[in-house]
């Protein structure tokens, strides 16, 4: 498995779980999965496994069904065809062994909610009845807060925290109940670069410590490029899965999109240019276009970032 990018990644590579050399326990298994809304076919014949400790980035144009894939795993959406098994049984709604981290949305001031309360909701927010203070519950919440480095603002109103701090709390919340699989839906969106780094490293650390499978939906691979084991790329109703080196190549993505696409690698970053507009949305889509020149070269729909 080749990993490119920062030095730290190479240093870690020895410890990285490798699905090829040492097959691990399969957390999620998808076979012949298809999702279709009326005439609109998002993807079909989807086959892949997520193994314990494996970090998979899910990439693809807007409207390619990345978030819908997570919805299916969460049991909120039915597959049109195929099977999906979590820990050997069909996926069900509200499985406590699946953690979920959505994109950061600033909580509004209308709710009485401190950092510790957000995490506590992950512990027992689904239970009916009053949240009576118990020592065990408090300890669990304290441990989770400490494990994501959020103890400092445990008693601060969530609405006054920064986006990065809120996402740290969300990671802590998602780890409650000792999940086997973590689903992340654009968790870095609207964070600055430093916080993107911090939050993705936090997720990376925990998946190694806890042997967690991670499915990480993102429009930009670069913040997690040196962490991911494999990439699942959804486009044109089909998909490719493999290491970043295997999937993020001009010929592979051109075939997937059915039109010429260039993958440019520069300074440890991957930039995809020339992605056609998603057939159903109006947003052009690129991986990482911080560079305005490259952005212009892409010339597809104005370089919108979702």
């Amino acid at each position: 498995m080749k990993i490119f990018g920062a030095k730290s990644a190479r240093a870690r590579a020895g410890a990285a779980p490798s699905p090829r050399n040492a097959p691990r326990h399969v957390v999620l298994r998808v076979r012949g999965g298809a999702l279709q809304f009326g005439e609109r076919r998002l993807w079909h014949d989807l086959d892949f496994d997520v193994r314990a400790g494996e970090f998979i980035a899910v990439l693809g144009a807007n409207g390619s069904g990345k978030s819908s894939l997570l919805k299916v795993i969460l049991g909120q959406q039915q597959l049109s065809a195929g099977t999906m098994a979590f820990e050997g049984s069909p996926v069900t709604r509200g499985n406590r062994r699946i953690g979920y981290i959505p994109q950061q949305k600033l909580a509004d001031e209308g709710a009485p909610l401190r950092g510790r309360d957000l995490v506590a909701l992950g512990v027992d927010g689904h239970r009916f009845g009053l949240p009576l203070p118990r020592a065990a519950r408090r300890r669990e919440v304290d441990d989770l807060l400490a494990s994501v480095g959020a103890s400092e603002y445990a008693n601060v109103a969530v609405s006054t925290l920064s986006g990065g701090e809120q996402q740290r709390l969300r990671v802590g919340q998602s780890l409650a109940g000792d999940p086997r699989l973590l689903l992340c839906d654009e968790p870095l969106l609207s964070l600055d670069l430093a916080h993107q780094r911090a939050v993705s490293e936090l997720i990376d650390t925990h998946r190694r410590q806890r042997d967690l499978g991670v499915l990480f939906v993102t429009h930009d691979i670069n913040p997690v490029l040196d962490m991911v084991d494999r990439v699942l790329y959804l486009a044109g109703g089909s998909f490719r899965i493999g290491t970043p080196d295997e999937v993020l190549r001009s010929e592979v993505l051109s075939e997937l999109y059915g039109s010429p696409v260039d993958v440019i690698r520069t300074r440890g970053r991957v930039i995809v240019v020339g992605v056609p507009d998603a057939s159903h949305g109006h947003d052009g889509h690129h991986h990482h276009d911080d560079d305005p020149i490259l952005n212009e070269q892409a010339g597809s729909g104005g370089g919108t970032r979702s």
Partner: protein
Amino acid sequence: MNGIDWADLWSQIFNFSDYGDLIVLLQNSIIAGAVLGIVGGLIGVFVMSRDMAFAVHGISELSFAGASAGLLFGIGVVEGSLIGSIVAALIIGFLGAKSRDRNSIIAVLMPFGLGLGILCLALYPGRSANKFGLLTGQIVAVDDPRLNSLIAISIIVVVGLLVVWRPLTFASVDADVAAARGVPVQTLSIVFMLLLGLAVAVSVQVVGSLLVLSILVTPAAAALRVSSSPIVVPLLSMLFAVLSLVGGIMLALGGSVPISPYVTTISFAIYVVCRIIAASRARRGISGRKLVALDA
């Protein structure tokens, strides 16, 4: 305006002669006020965290329509206002999942409800004092059966809220994750609307439909200014609502003015004080960061 007799005006607003006798006479009203304060303060926390203040106003106008219709057709004010607010709450709950949709639905329903209510009142041949009371409150008219129905409905609302408290909190502040964790977000939303409908209906009968916000929103909004603790906020909110209602009733006893101005003024004053406290804390840089726990 040289005709105003200030002493007379004052005695109309504040008059404490024969106070002891009046208190005994209005015992029911005071109990009603306290019970209503607990209900309003408690549900107000969720009204705030679900951003439903406008919905409360909309429901209360339909509750007014129901009460007026109840008066006109002889079904009874209590029954009418209950039907009106539950129908409104369910319509808003089912059609207004997104806040934009919700606001437009409320804005459509509200004037219609108000108009319907006014029509029924205009056709009602009885005493006009009753009519005015539905809009601005008539706490003096709480007789035993009415107090009993008010307490019964209040118990349903409070017990219902306590049962769904945690998942409703989860669904209110963090709907996506709550759904992912298996919380029945949709069902809870409808359950909440039903409880809100009941709470509005009992409030309308006492403070009137125009002023329901002062006990279902203002106390919770004030409490949120001074705390973010999910335990302290509901307790403070209930305390503020009870203070406003009971205090308002006590002050209103002797005067000849309806009780609502007293209630709304106290509740507004509490809100202003809480904002001042929050502003002064912010100036001194108190945020709770680094283990400085301000509230429980």
